[in-house]
């Protein structure tokens, strides 16, 4: 199978709903990495620390809400704390469907980058 045929095969076997956008992918991996401590503040800080990219709380919540609607994450509300002005935290965790979406995306990316000379020389 040629490289181009391989790409179309991956797109064909990957259902459209399992495709992750770039920021969705970053947020999902961050939630997975933070395990049971994933809420707005920790997700934002982890993304900034690892990608050196400044993100807003609004961007994170807009993405997490979209991921929750797709069934890739689940959220639960914690108890209110004084350091948050008496407001509750909303914790997120990745579902089995979310893990599957990450795997699909990684497989597609690996397939697309396989054999690219440019990446080989850089690494």
């Amino acid at each position, binding site marked *: 199978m040629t490289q181009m045929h391989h790409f179309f095969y991956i797109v064909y076997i990957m259902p459209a709903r399992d495709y992750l956008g770039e920021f969705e992918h970053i947020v999902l991996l961050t939630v997975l990495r933070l395990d049971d401590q994933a*809420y*707005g*503040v920790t997700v*934002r800080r982890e993304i900034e620390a690892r990608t050196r990219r400044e993100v*807003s*709380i*609004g*961007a994170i*919540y*807009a993405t997490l*809400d*979209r991921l929750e*609607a797709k069934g890739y994450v689940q959220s639960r*509300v914690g108890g*209110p*704390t004084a*350091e*948050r*002005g008496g*407001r*509750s*935290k*909303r914790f997120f965790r990745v579902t089995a469907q979310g893990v599957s979406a990450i795997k699909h995306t990684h497989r597609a990316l690996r397939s697309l980058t396989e054999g690219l000379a440019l990446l080989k020389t850089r690494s």
Partner: protein
Amino acid sequence: MTRELPHPHPPRLAAWLVALFTSAAQAESILGDLHEEFFDIVSKAGIASARRWYWRQSAETIAHLASAGFRVAPWALAGVLLLGFLLRRFDFQLPEWIIVAILRAQRPYSNLHYGFYVWLVTYGIPIVGVIQTVLIGCIVAAFAKGREIVATTTLSIVSPFAFLLHFLLVGGQWSNSIFIFPWRFLIIQVENLVGLVIGGVLVREFRSVVARRFSRTSP
């Protein structure tokens, strides 16, 4: 004797604006996160930096939440905006009809209330116009649950362009009033646009109060 420093608090106006663009449940977690990070920055870099950070985060958060409001349900929002356009289009002359009806019924110019007549003719139409626009804002916001401010702000921004297009296509009928009183006409337009957003804010605040009461009474 030492004076205790005032307890720092996040900018209330910024927090209120963020709350306007979110649902009640979303506001709880987003404002809590902003609050938590604000005090972290206060302890590290001081209150001025923390306040700047809070304002910048609030502006970016509002922009993201507003654009998400369009992406999540574009057709529902378009339907609500169409409803707003139709209400504004058909109720355009309503304030004038109401004032004329009051004048016909009360005949203030025919008795000693001449001052009231002058006041009614001068300010009556703009006042009724603003009340009518606030009501249209309330109706649009009532249908755009969770996106009240996005819907009414969009309607208020797009309305002048729709009005201009309508004027260019079927114009003429309002040309005299526009060219004779251009500033008054512009002021009325601005008042009307602000009225739409005020209607959205009223409905959003009402829903927030109801949600807070409900969360307090539920176990």
